[in-house]
């Protein structure tokens, strides 16, 4: 791959320090994200414990097939992300770019499928605040379920969108040869973020879609 000078910012002594700082920084950021989603999951837990039947019934309108496909899509994207990191660490520029682009593509596919599901909900008047209609005894609790559904998946989708933007920048930089076997930390750190967004979905999928299935 030829000579590569590792860019070290002026505040760091060397690339080792820079690398550990960047990695630790991302882990701490992810800790804040856990607490951010944690607030919503807590609200979900409280209201589900208070209204177990209503939450289970409301969850039946979910399209488990689309949700399941989306889970598979996102898990695959984590795999391509891991491959992108591996390729970057070994200085394989072409493979790294291809894997980053695949990851972005899978992320976009997830968002499209999610969009289809949102459109379905809109058609069925299941979006709280926008002409919400729910035929059932406990419409209030069902509405709570749908608010939390849109909050949780909405913030998740927002994080995914940011992740796709991040990967776009990294793909361009990879293609331009910014990274090398000696310097691949930005790709690794972005990988941490991507896997986190993926893991959030691993929790959301059973919480939202599979209530009925394991009762």
């Amino acid at each position, binding site marked *: 791959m030829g000579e590569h000078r590792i860019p070290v910012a002026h505040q760091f002594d060397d690339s080792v320090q820079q690398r550990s*700082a960047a990695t630790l920084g991302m882990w701490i*950021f992810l800790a*804040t*994200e856990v607490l951010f989603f*944690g607030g919503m999951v*807590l609200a979900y837990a409280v209201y589900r414990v208070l209204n177990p039947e209503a939450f289970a019934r409301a969850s039946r309108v979910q399209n488990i097939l689309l949700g399941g496909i989306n889970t598979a899509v996102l898990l695959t994207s984590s795999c391509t992300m891991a491959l992108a990191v591996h390729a970057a660490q070994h200085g394989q520029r072409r493979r790294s770019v291809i894997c980053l682009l695949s990851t972005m593509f899978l992320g976009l596919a997830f968002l499209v499928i999610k969009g289809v599901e949102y459109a379905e909900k809109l058609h069925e008047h299941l979006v709280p605040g926008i002409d919400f209609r729910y035929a059932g005894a406990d419409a209030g609790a069902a509405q709570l379920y749908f608010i939390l559904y849109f909050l949780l998946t909405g913030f998740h989708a927002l994080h995914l969108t940011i992740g796709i933007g991040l990967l776009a920048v990294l793909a361009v930089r990879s293609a331009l040869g910014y990274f090398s076997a000696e310097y691949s930390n930005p790709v690794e750190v972005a990988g941490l973020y991507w896997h986190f967004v993926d893991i959030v979905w691993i929790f959301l999928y059973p919480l939202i879609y599979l209530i009925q299935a394991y009762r």
Partner: protein
Amino acid sequence: MSPHSITTHDHYLNAGYGVRSWLLTTDHKRIAILYMISITFFFFIGGFFAFLMRMELLTPDGDLVSAETYNKLFSMHGITMVWFFLIPSIPSVLGNFLVPLMVGARDLAFPRLNLLSWYIYVAGGLFTLAAMIFGGVDTGWTFYTPFSSTYAHSNVIPVVIGIFILGFSSILTALNFIVTIHTMRAPGLTWFRLPLFIWAMYATSIILVLATPVLAITLAMLGVERIFGVGLFDPALGGDPLLFQHLFWFYSHPAVYIMILPAMGVVSEVITCFARKKVFGYKFMAFSLLAIASVGFLVWGHHMFVSGQSAYAGMVFSALSFIVAIPSAVKVFNWAATLYKGSISYHTPVLYGFGFIGLFTIGGLTGLFLASIAVDVHVHDTYFVIAHFHYIMVGGAVMGYLGGIHYWWPKMTGRLYPEGWAKFAALVLFVGFNLTFFPQFILGYLGMPRRYHVYPPEFQVLNVLSSAGATILGIGYLIPFVYLIWSLRHGKNAGANPWRASGLEWQTTSPPPVNNFEETPVVTGEPYTYAEEESPGG
């Protein structure tokens, strides 16, 4: 050119004079100065709201402002002071300036994120300020639902968005501190050689990164409820208002420790320097900071003793709240033990340090009254609570901030302030503070509720005393504002180490050069190596 001009060396202040050199700087020292200017601005705005409240409370009748305006005044006073002054005060100003210097680094780990945090602060601040100017907000700083979500007609959404934005500035600053302290310490600077101020910044940063996101999502959920009219926290629509209180206090109780732990860090530095003694029980001091930070996450329910949480939850939260008193008391005793048989010199910073210890002790002990469920039921939502938390936030946090500003001012600016005026101002503040808030303990105990603009005539004497004290307090804040600015041009040249203090920040020139140190310092021993014979200069 004045006789005391500081042109002898290159430093961060003369590295560039243009507006761009400030607004696009990534130097942690310049960002600290930007923060100092911004939070001072918000401090005086918040103070102005308090001034109007105290004027209204001079008489039992509502003759200056209406009930509605008064509601807005105390809400905006609390919001401004908590989020736009106290939370960023010591971390964003002194912490930003000192963390890299104290660990012997050239800058924080992420200088551009640091600048971004200031812009986020300013954006959140201006957004909130605009919302206050165009109508204000009347929910109290706590935004309790369902009032804030359903009934209030003021600018709840814009203010909530402003605070939501601001939260990210706290998170970025704290993240920067944690990473810098972990990865960028100078050779030889092991964890137990770190100054206690760094330990305080570390503990504070842990709270900031773990608590702030919960506030963010709570306010986001409040916003969703208000905008879409759905019942996340509204009992009429199936929601639970207590859930909001749980989530809010999960952030807002630790937020009290975000305010007080940094001040404890400042006081530890100041006390040991001016007693010319090694700090007593260094490891206990460090671990008690971490203990307060961690136990502080488990006590939020003591704000909800009368909100309808279960009696058992109340008992557990009460017991846990008592436990926080233990590490807090360790700190007070260790400061006292550090002073014991020290050769104390009474310079301005240590006067603030003494003020802090005394006022924090009163604030902390009255906190134990409030942590006892039976007493809390009696004095809940009275002026007793107001007095208690102002002893912590103003008597503790603001005294600590001012002490720190006076201690490190020579380092930050290269100038000394007039010592006589500074001591006088510290005294005025101490007297004014106690006159303002001590009567409020009595008022609360006698049963005067908070957040009312009218009160029964028998409470007037104590209220007049309090308002008089507030006036003295206000003057006390203006004096340092004037002489500190004056000293920028006319103050004596400070030299590198006017207090003969230990600590890496004093090893470099004042003001420090852009890269902080000519060469990376190497640390060979523990902190606070003071010998009693050498007195601090200045």
